[in-house]
């Protein structure tokens, strides 16, 4: 029978370090995807993700269990990414900064319609998400892939759930716009299905 997160954490805290591997396997894709929302470099993302799990392990005794483990993990992801990006001297003073969004967009300008049209829907969605600002792409990932409620996202982002709801709506609308703008052919096909 599969152990729950809380059970695994209890075992790790009791000194059975090997059990932590189960948590890593369970959340590695989630953490890696979230980190990729901050930096599109896979090597950097892997380094940060590894750092996130090391920090999580070291602070495991501080996990009180009053929120999901994934919610707690996200707070570590966020601080680790911001610290890493500051070290790299990227402009990350404000995650809402429109300039950040523009940078992301310009970094992704290589994803043209022709290059992507042949790829799967998955590739298209991921490429469109990478064109969004880090804030937008994180909210989408937390909501759809982290299975976090609006309240949980609000708690980790220190925002009101209603604000998160508005941000989520806007993020999805912007995602739709990006897909329509950059992958119009594939999107048209989808609408015709």
């Amino acid at each position, binding site marked *: 029978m599969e152990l729950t997160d809380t059970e695994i954490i209890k075992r790790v805290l009791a000194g059975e370090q090997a059990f932590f591997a189960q948590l890593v396997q369970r959340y590695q*894709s989630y953490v*890696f995807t979230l980190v990729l929302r901050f930096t599109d470099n896979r090597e950097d993302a*892997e380094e940060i993700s*590894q750092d996130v799990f090391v920090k999580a*392990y*070291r602070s495991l*005794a*501080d996990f009180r269990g009053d929120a999901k483990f994934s919610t707690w993990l996200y707070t570590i992801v966020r601080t680790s990414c911001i610290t890493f990006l500051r070290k790299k001297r990227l402009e990350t003073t404000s995650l809402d900064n429109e300039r950040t969004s523009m940078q992301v967009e310009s970094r992704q300008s290589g994803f043209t319609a022709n290059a992507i049209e042949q790829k799967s829907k998955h590739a298209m969605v*991921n490429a469109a*998400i990478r064109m969004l600002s880090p804030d937008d792409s994180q909210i989408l990932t937390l909501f759809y892939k982290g299975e976090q409620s609006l309240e949980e996202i609000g708690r980790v982002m220190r925002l009101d759930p209603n604000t998160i709801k508005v941000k989520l709506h806007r993020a999805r609308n912007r995602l739709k716009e990006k897909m329509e703008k950059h992958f119009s052919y594939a999107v048209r096909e989808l609408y015709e299905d």
Partner: protein
Amino acid sequence: MPYGNYMRINRFSPGLQNEPELYTFNDNRMNKEVTIEDRLWDFIDGLSSPAEKSAIETLIAENVEWQRKYKELLNVHQLMVGSELEEPSMRFTRNVMEEIARHQVAPATKTYINKNIIRGIGAFFLSLIAGLLVYFFAMVKLPSDSSTRSQPVNLPSMNLEALDKVDYGKLSGNLPVTLFMLITVVMGLVLLDLYLRRKKEQVS
């Protein structure tokens, strides 16, 4: 009017003339789109109330514009639901486990932050505030009036004009006192903010 502040926008949507007062806050096409989208996203996310849900179901069934918009948004939603997470390298778990083998779980913060220390810091600041008040009253020069000093204080008959004669200049011109008061006020506001946030979280 069942949907709060919504106003009718029939002149922009010929297909909607028979739908009463459902669509938007203003007579404005953009706002109409936003409102439709917001309501449809709530519907898709399962956040609509039962009454709202059935109203939207009817609109989707009967109105072409709502049908089109619903299909559009549902496609985005399904794409997101069906999207896959990015995978790190195959060695990722092993790398993490090798790294944490060199570390130990740190003791929980609450075990090494003594509550008495926090209380001590609080008491220190409270005594500072009390000291400030004492200093304030010591600096204030109340007009000498032997008749009021020798008698018990009678609040209703207290001479309030005496407060106008207080020498406030001694306080306002004193930079350290002003700074201290500012810091105290800021700290007080921060503490109040923390307290209210915690209350709000408890309520929610």
